C-alpha cells in the first residue's frame, strides 16, 4: 500500500512499557493492579501480544528512591527483578519481544552476557537490552564496590561493557555443538567460547559458557539525549528511546541521530527511533481532554507537586503551600541533591534559568505550585478519540518524527487494553501496522538485518 504521493507507507512499530516507580501510575484508581504480582505482568504481556506489539519493556531498580533523607512513598514503590520477570514472561508469550533495562555499572559483563544469552535461548530469540549507566554513590551503597565510577566515565564504561558482552555473545559462532551421539562428538571443536578482553575497564579472559543464542545477541536499546548518548546510539544501538514526542522536536532528533550512522557503515533503517508515549482516550477529543486533565491532577497531587518542585529547587520545600505561589528563593546549586536514586535526578541543566521560566509562567498564567508542575511536567502525548490518536501516531511516523512508540499506560496492567482494542485496529486498517507476526524473533519484528552467521565469521577470520 502506498500513500497518495507514491511513497510506500512506513510500518509503525509499537511497544508497551510496564511503568516503574514514578508518578505515571495512578495507583489510587481502583482499576490499578499490583506492580509486583506476576499475574499483572502476565496480563500486560498477553494484551501486548494479542495486539501484535513488537515488544514489552521493563525498567530496572537498584535502590529505593529517597527525598530529604526519607524513602519516597508517594509513587509506586517495589518492583520485581527485570531478568527474572522477562524469563517468566517468555513462558506465557510466544512472539512478543522482551526488553529489559540492565545497567553497566553495578554489573559485570560475563554475568550479564550469560543472562541475556539465556533469556534469548529460553524465549527462542526475543531478548532485548536497554543499556543504561549509573554512577552515583547512593546507588552504590547496595553493591560490593560502592560508588566507584566517576560520573564522566560512565559512558566509557558502558561502551566497554557493551563491547565486552558482544565479544562474549560472539565467542561461540553457532556451529560448535555437533551432538553426534554415535561417535561421541559433542563439540565439533575443542575449547569453544574463548575470549580475552583487556581494556581500561575490564581485564577478563577464559571461555564463555553459553552457546550462541537464536538472535546471536540481544537487540540493543539505548536511551540518551546528550550528544554522547546520540553518538553511542548511532554507533551501537538497534533502537533508541527518546523523549521527543512532538513533531518538530521529533523530526530534528530523528534526523540528527540517523545522520550520525553513515560513518559507522550503518543503514538508517537499522536504528529505530521510538519515543515513550502516554495516552488518554475518549469517545470524543473533548472528552479525552477532560479525562487527561483529571489524570494529570491524579498524577500530581499537592504533595507530589512540592516534591517535584524540590527536585529543581534542591531544597526542602515542605513549608510551602501547593496551592500557593512558587518560592521566592533560588534553587540550591550545591552538589548534594535532595532527591536521590532517580534516573533523572540531574535533568535540570540550568536550574536557575528553569526556575526563572517557571516563575514567569506562573505569574503570567496565575498558576499555583501544583498547577505549574502539572503544566511543566508534560502533558500526555496522545489525547483524543481513537481516530485522532491513530492519525497522530501515523502522521508522526510517516513524517519521520519517529519509527513508532513505546506506550506507557497510567493504569497497569489493564490500561493497555483500551489502546489495543480501539487504536490498533485503526492503524491496521490504514495499512501501517501488522495484522499478524510474520517473524518469530524480535530482530525480525523490528526489521533488523540478521547478524553474521558462523560461516561468515569464520570466513572473515580466515581472510
Amino acid at each position, binding site marked *: 500500500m502506498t500513500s497518495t504521493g507514491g511513497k510506500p507507507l512506513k510500518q509503525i512499530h509499537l511497544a508497551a512499557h510496564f511503568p516503574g516507580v514514578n508518578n505515571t501510575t495512578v495507583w489510587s484508581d481502583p482499576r490499578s493492579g499490583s506492580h509486583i504480582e506476576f499475574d499483572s505482568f502476565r496480563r500486560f504481556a498477553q494484551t501486548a501480544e494479542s495486539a501484535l506489539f513488537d515488544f514489552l519493556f521493563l525498567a530496572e*531498580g537498584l535502590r529505593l528512591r529517597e527525598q530529604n533523607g526519607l524513602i519516597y512513598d508517594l509513587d509506586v514503590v517495589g*518492583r520485581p527483578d527485570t*531478568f*527474572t520477570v522477562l524469563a517468566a514472561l517468555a513462558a506465557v508469550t510466544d512472539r512478543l519481544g522482551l526488553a529489559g533495562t540492565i545497567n553497566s555499572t553495578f554489573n559485570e559483563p*560475563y554475568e550479564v552476557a550469560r543472562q541475556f544469552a*539465556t533469556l534469548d535461548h529460553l524465549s527462542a530469540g526475543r531478548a532485548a537490552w536497554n543499556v543504561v549507566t549509573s554512577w552515583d554513590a547512593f546507588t552504590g551503597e547496595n553493591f560490593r564496590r560502592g560508588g566507584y565510577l566517576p560520573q564522566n566515565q560512565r559512558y566509557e564504561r558502558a561502551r566497554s561493557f557493551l563491547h565486552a558482552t558482544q565479544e562474549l555473545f560472539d565467542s561461540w559462532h553457532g556451529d560448535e555443538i555437533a*551432538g553426534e551421539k554415535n561417535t561421541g562428538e559433542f563439540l565439533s571443536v575443542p575449547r569453544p567460547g574463548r575470549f580475552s578482553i583487556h581494556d581500561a575497564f575490564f581485564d*577478563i579472559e*577464559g*571461555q564463555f559458557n553459553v552457546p550462541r543464542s537464536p538472535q546471536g545477541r540481544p537487540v540493543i536499546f539505548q536511551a540518551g539525549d546528550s550528544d554522547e548518548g546520540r553518538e553511542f546510539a548511532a554507533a551501537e544501538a538497534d533502537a533508541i528511546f527518546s523523549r521527543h514526542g512532538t513533531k518538530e522536536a521529533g523530526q530534528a532528533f530523528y534526523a540528527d541521530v540517523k545522520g550520525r550512522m553513515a560513518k559507522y557503515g550503518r543503514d538508517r533503517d537499522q536504528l529505530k527511533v521510538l519515543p515513550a508515549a502516554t495516552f488518554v482516550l475518549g469517545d470524543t477529543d473533548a472528552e479525552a481532554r477532560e479525562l487527561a486533565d483529571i489524570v494529570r491532577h491524579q498524577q500530581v497531587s499537592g504533595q507530589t507537586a512540592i516534591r517535584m518542585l524540590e527536585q529543581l529547587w534542591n531544597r526542602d520545600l515542605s513549608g510551602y503551600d501547593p496551592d500557593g505561589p512558587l518560592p521566592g528563593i533560588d534553587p540550591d546549586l550545591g552538589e548534594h541533591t535532595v532527591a536521590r536514586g532517580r534516573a533523572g535526578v540531574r535533568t535540570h541543566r540550568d536550574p536557575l534559568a528553569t526556575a526563572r521560566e517557571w516563575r514567569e509562567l506562573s505569574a503570567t498564567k496565575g498558576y499555583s505550585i501544583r498547577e505549574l508542575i502539572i503544566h511543566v511536567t508534560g502533558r500526555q502525548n496522545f489525547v483524543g478519540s481513537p481516530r485522532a490518536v491513530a492519525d497522530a501516531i501515523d502522521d508522526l511516523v510517516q513524517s519521520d518524527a519517529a519509527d513508532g512508540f513505546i506506550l506507557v499506560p497510567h493504569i497497569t496492567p489493564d490500561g493497555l487494553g483500551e489502546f489495543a482494542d480501539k487504536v490498533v485496529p485503526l492503524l491496521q486498517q490504514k495499512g501501517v501496522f501488522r495484522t499478524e507476526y510474520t517473524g518469530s524473533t524480535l530482530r525480525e519484528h523490528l526489521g533488523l538485518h540478521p547478524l553474521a552467521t558462523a560461516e561468515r565469521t569464520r570466513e572473515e577470520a580466515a581472510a
Partner: protein
Amino acid sequence: MASRSQIHLAAALDGAGWHPAAWREPEGAPAAGLLSAGYWLDQVRTAQAGLLDFVTIEDGFPLQSDDFAELDERTDRVRGRLDASLIAARVAPLTRNIGLVPTVTTTHTEPFHVSKTIATLDYASTGRAGWRAQVGASGHPEAALFGRRNLPRIRAADLAGPEAQARFRELFDEAADHVEVVRRLWDSWEDDAEIREAATGRFIDRDKLHYIDFEGRHFSVRGPSITPRPPQGQPPVVALAHATVPYAFAARSADIVLVTPAGPEAIAPIVGEIRAAQNAAGRGGESLLVFGEFVVFLDEDPAAAIARKERLDEAAGTPYRSDAAVFAGSPDALADELALWAQAGLDGFRLRPGTVPHDLDAIAFGLVPALQARGLFRRAYESATLRGNLGLPRPANRHTAATPA
C-alpha cells in the same frame, strides 16, 4: 506437617543427566535441545508428576570441565549451559506445587541482585522458590571471568593442603555473609508495607521498610530491597556439604543441607557434626533438614540397570565416580535403601538421575510409587508452596517479631 515417617525427595537437574555419557543415549534430547525451554519444562513436569518436593538446577560460571580447577579440551562431554535462575523462572508459570531451586554462586555475585532474583522467582512461582547457595571453588579460572579479584589456581592434588583449606574457609565465610545479606533483604520489607492509602497519598508505609546496613569483609549493603517480601517470607536456602567447613556454613546459613555419606553407617556422625555446628551457630531451635545424595541408575530389572551403567561408563571412557553414593538397581530396591538411610537420621534425599529422561522417569513413576506403597512418601501435595511441602512454617519478619504486640 508431613508425617514423621515420610521422607522428602528432590531431583537434581543437570544437562542430559549426571553420567558424562548420558547425552549419547538415543532416547535423550538432541544436544541443541539441552538449551531449549521445552527440555527443562519437561523435566520439571516429570518431577511434579512424581510429587517431588523440589528440583535443583545446577549452574556455574566456568565452562564445564572434567578437571576440577582447569578447563579441559574434551569434545565428548556436554559443554555449555544456561543460567539456572532464569531456567527456574521460565518454567515457573507453567508448573505448580513443585519447588524450583536454582544454584547461584556466592563468590562473584552481588547479594543485592541475588536477593531480588530469588524473591522475584518466588512471586513468579507463587511461593515455590529456593536457592542452592554454592561457592565458586575452582579459584583462578572463574575469577578471571570477572577480573575483580585474584584467586590462586587450586589443583585437585592440593585440595587437602593448608593453602586450599584457608581459601575454602574464606570462600565459605563470604558465602555465609552473602546469605545473611540476602536474608536480611528478604525481610527488609514487612509483609504489609504496601498500603495504597489514598487519603494520605502514601503507596507504602515507610516505617515498614528497613535499611539492613550490613558491613562485612567482602561487601557492605545498605538496603532496603527494591522487591517486597517474597510470598514465602524466606525462600529455603539449600547447601551441599561434604566436610567440616561446608557443614559449618550449612549449619549457619541453610534450611536444607545435602550430604554425601557413602553408606548408612556414615549418617549418624555426619548429622551429629551438623547438629553440633547448628547449636554453635545459635540456630539450635531452628529447622535444618538433612538430605542424602544419590546418583541413580534405575531399571525394573536390576541387572539391566547395572549393564546400562557399564555401557555408559564404556562410552564415557572412564568408570563413573561421584562425590555421592551411586545406586544402580531397581526402584523397589532403592526404596528399601532410602528407607534404611532415612531411619539412620535423614529427612530426605536429593536424587541425581544418571540419564534423562530414563532415570528421571524412573524416579517419578517407579521409585515414588514404591515409596508410597511403603507409606514413606506423600500421595498428594500438602501445599502450594515449597516451605509448606517441606513442613517448614512461614517465618515472621524479624522486624515485626521485634515489635511488641
